[in-house]
Structure formats: C-alpha cells, structure tokens
C-alpha cells in the first residue's frame, strides 16, 4: 500500500492557476461550452436538494440562437413584462454610460458599471415582490431602476451632493433604499450575504412572507462570509436566494483564482444540502425563470437556493482600472453567451412585439431620461460643488450624539 520509494520519487510543485489568455494573446474562451437552450430540465419547486445536485453542472437557458424562448424554464412572460425588462436594462446601460463619463469629467470620484450583466438584477427584480429585500453588491443597480427608484436620487448619491440620501458619507454607487427593498451597500465584499440570511431568518421568525435575495461576485465567494451565509441558510432553512454573479473576473483576477477552474460556483450549494441552479446570466428569461423558481421555494418555506449566474464583466472593474492590462482587449466581444440586451431585443422582435425602430426610440427615451435626471442632480451639484452640511459628518454615528462627538464638532467649528 505505502510505497517506501514513492516518497523520494516525486517532488511536489506549487500550482498557480492562470487564465487561458493574457493581453497580447488571442482571446480563448473555448472552455465556455453552453448547452443548447431548453435542454436543462426544470425540477419541481419541491424537489430535494439531493436530487438536484446535477443542476450545478448544467446551464439553464431559455433563449436560443434564433431568439426563441424554449424549454421548461421559459417563464412565459407577457410582452409587457419583457419590454419592461428591456427598458430597465437599457436605462441601466444609459445611466452607467453617463455616470462613467461624469467620473471621467471629474464630477465625482468613482463609478462602477454593470455592462453585460444587466439581465441578472433586472430579471431578479421583476421576478421578486417589490418588498422582498435585496442585499446586493455594487453591480446590481438595475434593481433600483426596476423598482422605479428616482434616478436623480441615485445621482445625488454619486455626487455626494446636498441631496445625497447617504449624506455624503459613502463612496459613489453605495446606495441604500429601504423603502425599495434595497439594503445599504457595503464597501466590504460579501458581508451582505450572511446578513441577507439573517434578514430572511427574521422574516421567518415573524411569520412574514417576504424573502431576501442577495448577490455576490465570483471573486467574493472566497470570503468566509459566503460560507457562513450558506451554513446558516442551510441550517435554518432561511427563505433566501443567494446569487453568485460569475462574471469571470474579480478586478484583475480570473475566476480560477476563486476556484472556478475546479468546479462551478453553483456546486458550492451541494456541500450544504442547498439546491443549486446554474443559469445563463445573459439570458433574461432564464434568469427570471430561475429566480421565480427559487422565490417560490423560499416563500413556501422550503428554504434557500444558490444560483450561479454565468456572465461576463464587459467593462473594467471600476473607473480605477484598465482591463486591457490583464486580459485580451477583444475578450468581452467574444463572450459566447452574447449580450443580454441584444438577446432580449431579438426575442421580442421574433415574437413580433418589438422592432429596431422601437428599440432605437427606447434607447433615445432612456438616454433623455438619464440626461434630464443628470441635469437635475447637477443643478444641485456634483462632488465638491455641493454637499450636505459638514455637521452631518458627526451625525448618525449613534442615534444620539454623545458628548465626545459634540465636542469634536465644536472643535471643527460646525
């Protein structure tokens, strides 16, 4: 059994995973082999997690290359809902584009786009109830658009201006909107995931019927918080949907650095006895179907679901990095699962509910909407031009200001 010679026969070596292609190489996405749309079966919502293990290695897809919605995961949405989804995605994209430019113009300090990933938060928001609580990372801004949160207020936050609901205290894009079922975004990765589980436990404790829905990046799944979220969700059967947005990158690190070369992120669920779903994240209908499945499961007291959304981060991580320094410049365009906006647009056209002309008009409309909001926000002021009263720096540290903060405020002379 134990071979005494073996010990000296091999010497170990340290393996550091690397992506298939770096700047200068041609993009290589040959490992992305999506199954045809419609192929992956849809288990009953009451299926046992154990029986669903294989779902971690499949890919839920509804929209085929021809733009048709096929297979058991098709949520069979009406055209109005589909157009609503398209609008939210376009609005998100227009908003992202404008705010990115505003940052480049020095009107704020920082911005983060969600380009290419808009289907995930959009479809999730439409599949959930409005009062379900979302615990997101910084790349699910589309949820706010889907829930009709005022654009101007988002911009005020980005500009840290006098009307900023966060009172100038958070970096741009760290929204908080309790009335819109949107939990305060943290700068610390993954912390929201176990918090969402706690919120869901509270909802169950109060015999409420609201559920929690949380999002975390592929990279951030490595944090201990992810494990604790899965453990607590599993142990207490918390009514929560845990979404891993696998957009292939974590700043400059490809998903292999988070373990994605070894198995899928959906597979993590298996280790906790939680049902896994793995979804084409650029397929609006597939995401909707998956979230609706998980939401029904959660709401009927059957506990948590882990969903991996397979997608691609088309832009840089944020305004602070240049992705062509660490990946082939054409990789985004080569992404085999296409663009979520284009795919939903095509589908609507195929079913006769949309046209290129209407699409152009909608693009114009949302650009106008963003522009109008931007004017309004900029009239209040961009970063440094307008801001809340300095004395607010000392407020909300505690509910009531203790003496030492009062004294510090006086020392500053505000």
């Amino acid at each position, binding site marked *: 059994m134990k071979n005494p010679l073996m010990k000296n026969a091999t010497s170990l070596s340290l393996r550091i995973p690397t992506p298939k292609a770096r700047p200068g190489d041609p993009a290589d996405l040959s490992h992305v082999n999506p199954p045809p749309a419609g192929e992956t079966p849809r288990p009953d919502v009451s299926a046992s997690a154990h029986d669903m293990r294989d779902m971690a290695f499949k890919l839920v897809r509804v929209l085929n290359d021809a733009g048709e919605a096929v297979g058991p995961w098709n949520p069979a949405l009406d055209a109005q809902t589909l157009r609503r989804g398209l609008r939210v995605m376009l609005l998100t994209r227009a908003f992202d584009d404008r705010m990115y430019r505003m940052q480049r113009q020095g009107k704020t300090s920082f911005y983060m786009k969600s380009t290419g990933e808009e289907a995930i938060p959009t479809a999730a928001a439409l599949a959930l109830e409005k009062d379900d609580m979302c615990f997101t990372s910084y790349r699910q801004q589309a949820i706010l658009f889907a829930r009709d949160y005022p654009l101007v207020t988002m911009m005020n936050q980005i500009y840290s201006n006098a009307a900023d*609901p966060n009172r100038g205290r958070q970096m741009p894009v760290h929204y*908080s*909107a309790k009335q819109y079922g949107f939990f*305060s975004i943290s700068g610390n990765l993954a912390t929201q995931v176990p918090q969402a589980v*706690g919120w869901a436990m509270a909802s169950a404790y109060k015999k409420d019927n609201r559920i929690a829905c949380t999002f975390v990046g592929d990279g951030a799944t490595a944090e201990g918080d992810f494990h604790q979220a899965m453990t607590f969700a599993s142990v207490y059967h918390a009514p929560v949907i845990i979404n891993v947005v696998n957009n292939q990158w974590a700043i400059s690190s490809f998903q292999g650095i988070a373990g994605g070369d070894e198995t899928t992120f959906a597979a993590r669920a298996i280790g906790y006895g939680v049902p896994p779903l793995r979804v084409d994240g650029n397929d609006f209908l597939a995401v909707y179907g998956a979230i609706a499945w998980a939401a029904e499961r959660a709401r009927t007291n059957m506990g948590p679901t882990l969903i991996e959304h397979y997608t691609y981060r088309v832009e840089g991580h944020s305004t602070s990095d240049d992705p062509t320094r660490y990946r082939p410049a054409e990789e985004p365009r080569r992404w085999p699962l296409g663009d979520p906006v284009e795919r939903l647009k095509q589908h609507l056209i195929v079913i006769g509910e949309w046209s290129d002309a209407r699409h152009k008009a909608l693009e114009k409309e949302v650009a106008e909407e963003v522009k109008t909001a931007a004017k309004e926000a900029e009239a209040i002021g961009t970063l440094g031009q307008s801001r809340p009263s300095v004395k607010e720096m000392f407020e909300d*540290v505690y*509910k009531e200001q203790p003496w030492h903060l009062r004294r510090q405020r006086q020392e500053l002379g505000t």
Partner: protein
Amino acid sequence: MATMTMIQALNNAMDTMLAKDPDVLIFGEDVGYFGGVFRATDGLQKKHGITRCFDAPIAESGIVAAAIGMAAYGLRPVIEIQFADYIYPGYDQIVSEAARLRYRSAGDFTAPLTLRSPYGGGIFGGQTHSQSPEALFTHVAGLKTVIPSNPYDAKGLLISAIEDDDPVIFFEPKRLYSGRFDGWHEKPVETWSAHPASDVPEGYYNVPLGKAAIAREGQAVTVLAYGTMVHVALAAAEFAKIDAEVIDLRTLVPLDIETIVASVNKTGRCVVVHEATRTSGFGAELSALVQEHCFWKLEAPIERVAGWDTPYPHAFEWEYFPGPKRVAAALTRTLEA
C-alpha cells in the same frame, strides 16, 4: 427583589426582555437547549420557545452577520460569543458592518443588536479563555461598549443595551459570574448574596448607558476601573489604607467624562486599572483624557495598572492578573509622587 448572582441577573435580564418584547431573540453557540457554557441562558429556550433562544453554528462571523440582518429587519437580537477570545472571527462584521450601518445609510438601516461575551481572566483559561479585548471596540466609532461589575448593574445595563438602538458590545466579567472576586485569589471568594448589589428586582428596570458609578467615595486619589477590577481596586484601597475614590465606569463608550473629571479635579491623582494588555489598552485613552481635562490639577503622573503585554499565560495566572497588591503599590506611588 431577589438575591441574584451576576449570572442569574443576566439570565433574568434576558428572561425579562424576552417576555417584554417579541422582537427580542437570543442565539449563539450552545445557548439553546444547554443554556450556554456559563448557564447565562439556562431555561430560556424551554420557557420562551425554541425560536426565541437557539443554538448557532460555530461561526462567530455568521452569528454577528445574521444578527445584523435581523436587526436591519427590525428585531433586537441578543447574541452570545462564547468567550471574548473568540470574537475576532466576527470582528469584520462588527466593525465594518454593525458599527457603520446607521452612518453609511444615514439612518435608513440600523443595527440595534447586543453582543454579550464573557471576558477577563482568573479562571485558569490560559491565553484563549481569559482575554479582555475592550479597547479593540472602544476604538470603533458607532459601537457602545459596556462592562458591568455587579448583579444589579448587570441586569439593568443589559436591559438598556437590548433596548438601545445602536449596537452594544456587552462584556461580562466571567470571574464575577458566581461571586464577588476581588483579586485576593488565595482567599475564599465572597458570595454575591453578601453584597447589596445582589438585590435585584425581578421585573423590568434599567441602568442607563453612559453613566459611571462611584463605587467608593474618597479624597486621596481617583481610581478608574470596570468589571472585576472595580472590586480589585476596592480591595487595594483597603489593603493600602488609602482613601481612594473608586469609579466604576460601567460604560466605556460613551464615557461618563463628567464624573471622571470631577473626581480627578478633586483628588488631583489618578490610577487607571484594567486587565487587558497595557499597550493601547483602554487605560491609555483614560490616561490621555484625564491629563487633557485635568492637567492643571494633577499632582502626580497618572498610573496605569494593567495586564502585561503578553498573552494570558496559563501557569502565571496570578502574576499576570493585576491584583490588589499591584494596584495598591500604584496607589501608594501616586500618593508619594
């Protein structure tokens, strides 16, 4: 009124709040059926139901995070970290999340949770069952830090902590759980029942956060202490026959600066005592504050008597613990300075 030890008073505080407020719930490692390794939650699951007081996975970070989510929902979770020495895995959720949630969301979400944890040494727990990490929390804006020294305060302060709308770190001096330990470890420990603070009302009352108590009035020197060290300071004053004024801080943040300043201005001398390691301990803050506020009245350097800057060593329990003799020596030095 009943006669209670500190652990009974804490149990009673939670019992009272579970009965009073359906939004209060308790969880932590071994706190459910078993009632906690120190029996703080003994009987609460049986009395109030399994969803009101239950066991948690061994995941301090998850425990804090779940409590934050619950608090954001609108509950008032009370969580137990089994030993303060095991709080660090949860440190990020406490510091980055609970402490800043109100601030970062401008009050949109808040985290009114109470984190209870037994702390301090004197039980031969070695380096992982003896620590006093309070300074790691007093440095963090947004947290309140509370440490009781007797049964009456323990109940009243814990109730205030649970009702408080901010996150409260509530450290319980485990050496005081069952008796009034005053640092004379060779002598038998005085039972709580011999002490007036063991008269604890059965029902609801509170002791406000942010208010110190004067444990002993005196004229010669002010001693700032909390938790077990209050009793050690009293024993030291008696041992050294020094008319010390012993202030029991009770709440570290927000601190009752007025009581402190009034006392030091009166005595002109100050000794700060804690069990935590000395460097960057809360005593440093107290010393800095006292000299800032009372510089012109000070007649001697402010002394700090604290745990040594080493881990808490198993075999050297009583050389490590800042007992009455060390405190007495500091009092004497301060008076002679």
